[in-house]
């Protein structure tokens, strides 16, 4: 079967599952006792494993499988979550993520995860490094494992059996991976064993085994008269059994196990492997209610209702948009014809069609909107890791994650936000000591909020840290040669803070010493500006800092000024237009051979668009008065001479196709109401 067609689906879904695993794991970390979360995590991991196995990504599948083993112990109350387990699981998630990324990049998702797998297996065996250093970890392996699913009652049964001269065996059975009906196989093993002895308990429980809720192996305690080796070969004789190990337990190990249990329970209740802390699930009636509770709680957590969305390839939506704009062009044409024909029925129909099509247009546009959640959801994990490595306590509060933005913006905004968040965690929030010293609580808060305002979306990153010292910024700016002493004197505090975004501030190691801010912020600013957005900083010393990012709702539609040059029409993005106006020939001056005009007390260059684009049928030099458009790039301005303003319009940006990737001065094209293509001018090209 050709799996390629499912690959993108697999990648999407894997990413979803990884995301949900990350989120739930963080939830569990905050609330380690909540088994319903474990249940959700387990199911996610299980699905992921299944998908990976189906797609033939063995490494992915086997790593998830190991995680599942750990999670299974946790959800069955046989293992308590603790830091080491969390760290290992998070590491596994990272490994999974990089594997999926590899697959996304066309790789085979292979990775060396032996270290992580070893840790996971150690956890399953109960060998968890712990500060307390007592109990399970110190026990021999089988004992630790044994203690993992024996309760006191069963323990005493076993020890009595030994006293009475029976053999007590700990048996580990592995069924072949390709076995079709493993539950049946398992039943045959049990059946066989029951003939010459008694199975005291098994892990997973008999019920789980019957329902195929186990992977390819199970273990059990068994009382018999026969020798371990006999039992071993007996079971091996069954078909499709891969491996059987039977270990005879003596009185001493059993006593040790009992001691280990009580010690663990008494000394360190948060330790691993203490069956006394919860009813052992192996004792079937006792475990049942726990499981039911968990499975009931889980759907409530995930919301119960199945997702009512479908995935659509963004390219298909683009095609839909294109077809739609065609329809709109025909509509304009129809309206024209209708007004010529003067038939009231026709006019009415065309008007109705107009309304329907503008509704449709809105919906098509809305289809491209994605909640910012898709970007935000990776931040909690990032902040957690960052705070941990910096030894800080930080609460990340996310609000407005449902705010929607066009997919094109969402794709681009991730990196700048990561940068700003790192900044807030690293430099914004002070160390625990400093916070306590300044009378704050030891936990810093970073607010990440998104909200709509008019035609824009704002994303704010606010910390309650020490804030920025304007004076220090000015000093370092002077040191870097960005400002002179005199200029600095004229800067207000606010203006000084905005200097953080000045290019040249970025690589300055001085800055990170002085204020701790400003590393690469010019890059962030440049990125956001290129998206047609803006970013500003507000800061109050001692209170914190707020980076406010303003973004357009969509990148594919912009407001533009349409202009005419002879018979040609061009669009200039409104976001880069400062002003439009008219100048007379005698206002044009020549400085160093280039034309300049006076604009707000400074001289800015005047550029002839018709000359730049070699427009065949227009030359503004023949005109007495010339229309100009003043555009800007950063702080610099230039005036473009044009023939006429047609007016302001919302335009849909299209690229020029692969054959024409870069044309100087042109950033794309758009289709006008009459079906004609107009080129979009890239004002940046005129400002060097």
């Amino acid at each position: 079967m050709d799996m390629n067609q499912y690959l993108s689906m697999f990648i999407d879904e894997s990413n979803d599952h990884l995301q949900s695993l990350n989120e739930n794991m963080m939830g569990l970390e905050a609330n380690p006792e909540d088994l319903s979360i474990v249940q959700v995590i387990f199911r996610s991991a299980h699905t992921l494993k299944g998908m990976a196995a189906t797609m033939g990504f063995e490494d992915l599948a086997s790593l998830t499988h190991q995680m599942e083993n750990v999670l299974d112990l946790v959800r069955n109350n046989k293992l308590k979550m603790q830091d080491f387990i969390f760290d290992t699981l998070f590491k596994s998630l990272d490994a999974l993520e990089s594997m999926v990324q590899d697959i996304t990049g066309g790789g085979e998702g292979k990775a060396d995860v032996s270290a992580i797998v070893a840790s996971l297996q150690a956890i399953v065996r109960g060998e968890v490094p712990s500060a307390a250093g007592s109990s399970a970890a110190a026990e021999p392996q089988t004992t630790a494992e044994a203690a993992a699913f024996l309760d006191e009652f069963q323990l005493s049964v076993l020890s009595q059996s030994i006293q009475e001269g029976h053999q007590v065996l700990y048996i580990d059975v592995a069924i072949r991976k390709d076995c079709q009906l493993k539950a049946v196989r398992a039943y045959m093993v049990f059946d066989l064993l029951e003939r010459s002895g008694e199975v005291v308990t098994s892990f997973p429980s008999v019920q789980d085994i019957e329902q195929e809720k186990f992977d390819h192996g199970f273990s059990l305690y068994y009382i018999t008269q026969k020798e371990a080796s006999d039992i071993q070969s007996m079971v091996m004789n069954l078909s499709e059994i891969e491996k059987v190990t039977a270990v005879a337990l003596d009185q001493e190990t059993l006593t040790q196990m009992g001691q280990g249990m009580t010690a663990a329970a008494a000394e360190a209740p948060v330790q691993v492997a203490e069956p006394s802390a919860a009813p052992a699930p192996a004792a079937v009636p006792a475990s049942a209610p726990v499981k039911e509770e968990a499975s009931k709680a889980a759907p409530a957590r995930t919301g119960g209702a199945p997702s009512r969305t479908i995935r659509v390839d963004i390219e298909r939506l683009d095609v839909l948009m294109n077809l739609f704009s065609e329809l709109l062009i025909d509509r304009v044409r129809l309206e024209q014809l209708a007004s010529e024909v003067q038939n009231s029925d026709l006019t009415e129909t065309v008007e109705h069609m107009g309304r329907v099509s503008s509704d449709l247009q809105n919906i098509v546009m809305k289809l491209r909107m994605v909640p910012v959640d898709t970007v935000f959801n990776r931040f909690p994990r990032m902040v957690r890791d960052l705070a941990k490595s910096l030894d800080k306590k930080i609460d990340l509060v996310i609000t407005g994650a449902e705010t929607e933005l066009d997919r094109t913006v969402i794709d681009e905004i991730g990196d700048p936000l990561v940068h700003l968040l790192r900044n807030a965690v690293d430099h914004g929030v002070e160390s625990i000591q400093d916070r306590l010293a300044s009378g704050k609580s030891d936990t810093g808060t970073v607010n990440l909020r998104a909200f709509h305002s008019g035609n824009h979306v704002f994303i704010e990153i606010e910390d309650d840290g020490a804030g920025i010292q304007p004076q220090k910024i000015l000093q370092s700016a002077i040191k870097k040669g960005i400002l002179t002493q005199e200029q600095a004197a004229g800067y207000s505090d606010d203006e000084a803070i905005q200097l953080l975004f000045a290019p040249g501030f970025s690589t300055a190691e001085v800055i990170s010493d002085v204020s701790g801010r400003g590393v690469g912020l010019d890059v962030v600013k440049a990125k956001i500006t290129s998206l047609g957005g803006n970013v500003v900083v507000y800061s109050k010393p001692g209170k914190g800092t707020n980076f406010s990012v303003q973004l357009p709702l969509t990148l594919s539609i912009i407001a533009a000024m349409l202009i005419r040059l002879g018979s040609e029409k061009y669009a200039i993005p409104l976001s880069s237009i400062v002003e439009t106006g008219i100048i007379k020939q005698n206002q044009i001056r020549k400085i160093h051979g280039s034309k300049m005009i006076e604009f707000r007390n400074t001289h800015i260059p005047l550029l002839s668009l018709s000359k730049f684009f070699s427009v065949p049928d227009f030359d503004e030099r023949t005109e007495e008065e010339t229309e100009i458009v003043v555009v800007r790039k950063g702080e610099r301005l230039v005036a473009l001479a044009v023939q006429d303003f047609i007016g302001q319009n919302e335009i849909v940006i299209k690229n020029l196709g692969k054959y024409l990737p870069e044309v100087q001065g042109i950033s794309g094209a758009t289709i006008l109401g009459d079906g004609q293509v107009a080129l979009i001018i890239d004002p940046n090209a005129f400002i060097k």
Partner: protein
Amino acid sequence: MAEDIKVIVFKLSDEEYGIEVDKVQTIERMMPITRVPKTYSFIKGVINLRGVVIPVIDLRGRFGIAEAEHTDQTRVIIVNVNEMEVGFIVDSANDVIDLNRESIDTPPEVVGGIKAKYLDGVAKIGEDRLLIMLNLSEVLNKSEIVQLESLEG
């Protein structure tokens, strides 16, 4: 036994050319073209093909044949090669024929002034009809154009 292929036949000047039909998206009548400044002279501009902006090349110009006035017969053949969508302006296009691959010979050094590298081969149809098969990826190869332009300019 070589397979049959379907070929779109079009005319430039008095020569007949062929493009394999699976590389051709559609054939359109002449439509308004928006000039794109600052690019090669044979790129006539861009058109709006059902909402998609597509660059259009005058194939005469590309091959160094004197450009001609557009007539009723002028067509734009939209091809899709290496994920590039490009329109070719040709004098006329009105035939689809079946061609056996075996009937395509390697091209002579120069055909009608066109460099041999643009050609896949020459097919003989009937008694005295010659069909020049185009090598589209070479025709659309820009690295070579850059060289050409810099030599000229």
